């Protein structure tokens, strides 16, 4: 535990809320609302600087801890902290806020103030999710984030925005209601909502099975894993650019974060038990997402389905239960956030020019919009895991983890990587060198300064993390190691307990069975022998 004096995580959560409230009450015009939110985003990044400078590399535990009683009678506390698992996601969330403002600058033309209020609330809730260490507090942020996201899709989305937003809301909320029952069940078993304390408790096998089921359903919908993914393409396609960016970069990560933070440490026996199932649907997600992406004509749909596949790699890595797999999962989470977020920004940028997301309407850009196509090419290539760029590291680690565990699993996941190359290259090639659908394409302007400003950081991160993944590994590895060590210790203890609990009869039966005998027959034989002796 480490005291910082400056409650950096609380500030990161409550500063955007305060800014949103101020903006809501103000009579700001459109330009002022944009500028205000942009400044708020930059200040938010400034507030996050202590997070970067004071993070202790090599410390596997929770840092920047903040603790206060909330409802003491019921054991609720306001407990925030980050470790290597959540740290990078908090930074990514904070980084995205100003970029989202910039990429919506001309994209959003109506109800501008409300839009930015929602963006600010969204950021606050996302930081809260990744830093909460009290189960109820986590759930509060987890659910609170639904409302701004719902409004982002439902008000500023495409033609079918109402359908898509409703589907998004119903799916995710319905998924997490049972999660609440599981939280309450944990409380009645242990008397605490504290996540670190729950991580140190041990629960019976059946209890773990069903709590795991309740949690996993909520997380699987959020990730989304096949077959719970149907809300995602609809939501992505209909959402405005900034909405898609947050959805892809941060929201989907909450599901995999949940698996890592809760399912592995708190219900390890169930995680082990259900791992084959989870691996199976992870691979199904990878293959299914890849194939469906290959057939898409809509750019956003293509990227949305590719997300299903990429997130399949994350869950695959998590349920391999080895160091490489988990590191890879976290790496993919971060990099998918960067690359896919950037791709959605690019789709938004071209949509502003062509007013269409169909691939055929946006072809032949290489000649007329070279800078745009340059960025697009970089992100597309990064997305399918080109060596030297960030996604390669993560997927490679996951695959190494998979091969370490079982050759078959690794072999099954490989086609996913190839499919990714196929659909991304197809998209990139058509956009760069296809025949322009109409001559109007030639009149479009190339990237302007604003677009450079929000794309450049993403591009720098894409290249930098690809070439120097060590920095991420230094953050992630210790915490992953700890998660894994705790997990293995619990599994071992459970099996040791199971052995000790065997009754003498069971032990005798097991020994006789091993020798090909049955207890009843043997005892009959012994009785007969004793009778004969008498």
């Amino acid at each position, binding site marked *: 535990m480490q005291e910082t004096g400056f409650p950096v995580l609380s500030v990161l959560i409550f500063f955007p809320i305060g800014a949103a409230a101020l903006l809501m009450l103000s009579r700001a015009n459109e330009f002022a609302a944009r500028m205000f939110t942009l400044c708020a985003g930059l200040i938010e990044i400034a507030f996050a600087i202590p997070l970067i400078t004071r993070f202790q590399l090599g410390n596997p535990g929770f840092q920047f801890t903040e603790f206060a009683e*909330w*409802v*003491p*009678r*019921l054991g609720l506390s306001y407990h925030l902290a980050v470790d290597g698992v959540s740290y990078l996601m908090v930074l990514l969330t904070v980084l995205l806020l100003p970029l989202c403002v910039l990429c919506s600058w001309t994209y959003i033309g109506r*109800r501008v103030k*409300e839009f930015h209020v929602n963006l600010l609330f969204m950021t606050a809730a996302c930081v809260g999710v990744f830093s909460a260490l009290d189960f*109820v507090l986590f*759930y*509060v*942020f987890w*659910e*609170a984030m*639904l*409302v701004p996201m*719902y*409004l982002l899709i*439902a*008000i500023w989305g495409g033609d079918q*925005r*109402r359908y898509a*937003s*409703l589907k998004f*809301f*119903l799916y995710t*909320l*319905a998924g997490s*209601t*049972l999660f*609440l*029952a599981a939280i*309450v*069940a944990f*409380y*009645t*078993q242990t008397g605490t909502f504290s996540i670190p304390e729950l991580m140190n408790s041990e629960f019976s096998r059946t209890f773990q099975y069903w709590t795991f089921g309740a949690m996993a359903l909520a997380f699987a919908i959020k990730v989304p894993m096949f077959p719970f993914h149907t809300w995602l393409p609809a939501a992505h396609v209909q959402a405005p650019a900034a909405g898609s960016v947050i959805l892809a970069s941060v929201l989907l990560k909450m599901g995999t974060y949940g698996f890592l933070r809760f399912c592995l440490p708190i219900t390890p026996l169930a995680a082990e038990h259900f791992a084959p199932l989870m691996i199976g649907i992870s691979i199904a997600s990878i293959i299914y997402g890849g194939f469906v992406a290959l057939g898409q004509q809509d750019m956003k749909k293509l990227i949305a389905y590719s997300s299903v596949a990429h997130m399949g790699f994350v869950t695959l890595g998590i349920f391999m239960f080895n160091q490489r797999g988990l590191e890879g999962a976290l790496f993919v989470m971060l990099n998918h956030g960067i690359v896919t977020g950037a791709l959605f920004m690019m789709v938004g940028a071209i949509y502003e020019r062509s007013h269409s997301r169909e691939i055929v309407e946006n072809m032949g850009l290489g000649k007329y919009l070279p800078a745009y196509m340059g960025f697009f090419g970089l992100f597309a290539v990064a997305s399918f895991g080109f060596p030297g760029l960030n996604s390669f590291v993560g997927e490679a680690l996951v695959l190494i983890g998979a091969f370490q565990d079982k050759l078959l699993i690794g072999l099954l996941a490989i086609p996913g990587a190839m499919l990714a190359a196929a659909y991304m290259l197809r998209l990139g090639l058509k956009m760069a060198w296809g025949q322009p659908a109409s001559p109007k394409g030639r009149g479009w302007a190339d990237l302007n300064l604003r677009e450079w400003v929000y794309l450049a950081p993403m591009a720098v991160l894409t290249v930098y993390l690809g070439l120097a993944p060590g920095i991420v590994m230094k953050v992630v590895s210790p915490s992953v190691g700890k998660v894994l060590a705790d997990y293995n210790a619990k599994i071992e203890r459970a099996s040791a307990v199971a052995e000790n609990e065997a009754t003498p009869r069971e032990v005798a039966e097991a020994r006789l069975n091993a020798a090909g005998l049955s207890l009843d027959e043997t005892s009959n034989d012994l009785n007969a022998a004793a009778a004969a002796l008498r």
Partner: protein
Amino acid sequence: MNPEYRLDLCWPELFQLGIIVLLFIQALAKGERPKNVNWVPYFAAGGIVVSVLSLGFTGTIFYGAYSVDKLSQFFKLAVAVGFAITSLNAVKPPDIEGDKRPDYMLFLAFSAFGLMVLASAVELITIYVALEISSYSVYALIPLRANDRHAAEGGIKYIMFGAVATAVALFGYAYVLAGAHSSYIADLQGLTLTFQAQPWVVVGLSLFLVGFLFKLALFPFHFWCPDVYEGTANETAAFAATLPKLGAAVVLVRFAALIVPGWPIATFLAVLGAVSMTFGNLAALAQRDVKRLLGYSSIAHAGYIMMGLVSGTAEGLAAASFYALVYVLMNLACFWVICRISHTGKNITLDDLDGLAQREPALAVVLAVGAFALVGLPPTAGFMGKLFLLQSLWDNGYNWLVIVAVLNTAIAIYYYLGLVRHAYTHEKDVPRNAVRASVSAQVWGTVLAIVLLVLGAAPAPVFDLAMQAGVALLP
């Protein structure tokens, strides 16, 4: 002062009686001009202060029939808060002629007074009388809507069902008296309340409770609820939908202290609760009239409150009390918006909410907070209330009811979200001469929304009060 008549313990009731007297005088005054009742909310706010100051009072008066304890003071405070909001809501009901406003307000105040008495009543006949005081006023209010056939229908339904329910309650009282030879709850506490040991008392109590389950609109005593909400004026519905539930909740909480979990009566209530929430939510899915929708949703919420009652622990009773208070507040938030939008007193349908976010941004936020609180979505008070209920019930033998409740939340999202969906995502051109809500209406609505959010973020002080009440009942 004779200790049996220590009226100084009853300040909230006496204060409320004072408001009634003033209204009575105003109602008798001659004159055709519209009478101004704007002063009532201020006095009602004073009633909140009085209730807060008398939170710590304890004592038993009127020969044990009237108990001033933590539970009663908690509920009196809740009633005072609810009355303040409803009276603020009803200062200018468009359905009611101007010279009848003091009469209208008088009935509201009188009903609230009955509910305060109900909170302290611990003897069956006292409870019965208090229930009737609070009910009769509402019977008079419900048909008070100019030239509306639905109002007559609602009024008749409410009176008929109400009369039957109270008759059954009285019938049950006779059995209790026959079996237990006493009508004091304290005496019943000493009995073993199983059917084998005390058949008359168990049957009698069950029948007596019907009167309150009717008020709470628990399945199968819910028939009146959607029709009455639909038929009555918006302001009256705001009252009838909220405050009487507090009265029912307090009596049920007192009786629940008698119930041991696992006893047939507890299981019976648990089953009714489960059916009630499921039926209420499913029926609400199909509604277009917002008040009808809230009517069905209140049937579902009656089911949720049952969760705290059947758990039979102090936490459960506290959770039920807390939830009853929160329910009143979140429902009033929704009704506040309905009454402000409906300038002519007409019923509001979902389509009337279209474009509310542009037309009345503040009211739209209030509606959204109210609706999300009713779903039980964090960070609102509704979430905390539901969390406390689930928590109290889990591992007390009714885990299935928790699962039913949780699944019901998933069903309920759709129609509550419908309110927000229409307000925010269905856009409509605003007519230039549209009537706007007054600044004070926006401000008070916002205050209500903020209270819901604050109770969600920091429920500890209020929940502690409820908890003290629960612990006092179940030592």
